[in-house]
């Protein structure tokens, strides 16, 4: 059996994995539907922004989930470099893949929110969005790196180091964008953190949990797909 699909005990993926994925999917559905129900039926409408603030209940969870994916990707990358176990390469790749998808969604939902809040599709004053743009560009280059390097240990290690750079870039860019605000663009104060009523906080938290579980479900599906792909390629070479 190929190196990529053995789990920790050396056994190939079996029915156990499938039930974990199913459980995650069910949990994701429950948490997301529940969280959004709370957001629309229980949480009050925002005093300043009105109904448009409801975007916040997916935009922020998606953003936080993207960060989580990048962190998981970096963690898997670290494990690859530390243990040289090649299965971590696909895991890191998948996590970052998920992160980029959620990152793109963050930019799109954030853009819609900017349009409805300030009348522009993009504003450099919105720090969260600018940070995500930088990270999106960075992690998109991750794919360029993978596509243009031949498969093998070299590509795995380069990808892993790059993934680590990404996670270091997150706080550094955050700081950079923050100080940039003083000279480059006026920072618009958003309502995200300031004095959230308890109901809103709970709703967002449930949505966040749901989004994370969704990401975990998609991660497993995607990882399984990538592993099968790799195994088939190996089989093809063996049979050729």
């Amino acid at each position, binding site marked *: 059996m190929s190196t990529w699909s053995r789990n920790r005990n050396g056994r190939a993926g079996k029915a156990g994995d499938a039930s974990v994925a199913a459980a995650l999917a069910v949990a994701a559905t429950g948490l997301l539907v529940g969280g959004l129900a709370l957001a629309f039926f229980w949480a009050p409408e925002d005093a300043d922004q009105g109904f448009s603030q409801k975007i916040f209940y997916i935009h922020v969870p998606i953003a936080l989930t993207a960060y989580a994916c990048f962190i998981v990707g970096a963690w898997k990358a670290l494990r690859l470099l530390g243990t040289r176990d090649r299965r971590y390469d696909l895991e890191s790749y998948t996590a970052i893949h998920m992160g980029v998808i959620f990152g793109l969604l963050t930019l799109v939902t954030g853009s819609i929110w900017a349009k409805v809040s300030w009348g522009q599709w993009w504003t450099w004053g919105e720090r969260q969005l600018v940070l995500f743009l930088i990270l999106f560009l960075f992690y998109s280059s991750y794919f*360029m790196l993978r596509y243009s390097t031949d498969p093998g240990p*070299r590509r795995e290690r380069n990808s892993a180091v790059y993934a680590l750079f990404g996670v*270091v870039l997150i706080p550094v860019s955050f700081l950079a964008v923050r100080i940039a605000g003083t000279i480059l663009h006026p920072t618009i104060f958003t309502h995200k953190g300031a004095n959230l009523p308890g109901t809103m906080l709970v709703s967002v938290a449930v949505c966040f949990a749901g989004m994370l579980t969704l990401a975990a479900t998609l991660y497993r599906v995607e990882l399984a797909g990538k592993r099968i792909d790799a195994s088939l390629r190996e089989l093809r070479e063996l049979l050729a």
Partner: protein
Amino acid sequence: MSGYAADVAALARKDLLLELRSRETLPAMLLFVVSALTVFHFALPAGSSARAETGLLWIAIVFTALLGLGRAFAAEREQGALDGLVLAPCDRSAIWLGKTLGVTAFLVLAELVALPAFALFFHSLSWELVAAVALADVGIAAIGTLLAAMAAASRARELLLPLMFLPLVIPVVIGGVGASVAANPGSFLAFLGLYDAVFAILCWASFEYVVTE
């Protein structure tokens, strides 16, 4: 520890001597940066602020650095010498450090021409700007050297290096431009120092994973 320092010094000296003899990269960087500054003059409509011009200086520096970095491992690649270096009994991170020192030297030499040219074409420089350029050089050289080694393994290295480099260099540009134009350059200079420290350590620690087969 002196063995390590000696390795680093030897590697840096090798790069500088190679350049001294071949004179390929540095003249190109000098010419490029002056050409870029000329282009910028024509790119700025009349009445553009001094701040815009300062911003463009930073762009010139970033792209000149990219030009030089594209050649950073060229000599090793063409001569097939990188394997030899990696097999040498020195710490792999010493290769990174030696190479980075070399790249920094190239950048500084290029800026010895670029900054006076800028002062001539546009407006005079503040000492904060020069300090920011010096700090930025370290960060640019550090990450650039590592990324150049990564790109060297790919089939599209001339394309890949700028793509990987630019997002990482955005904080440097922010710090540099900020230090050049802001009322309180201190925090920007401190940020550049932080960037240099964080990424230099990261590059130093991870270089061996990037070059070993």
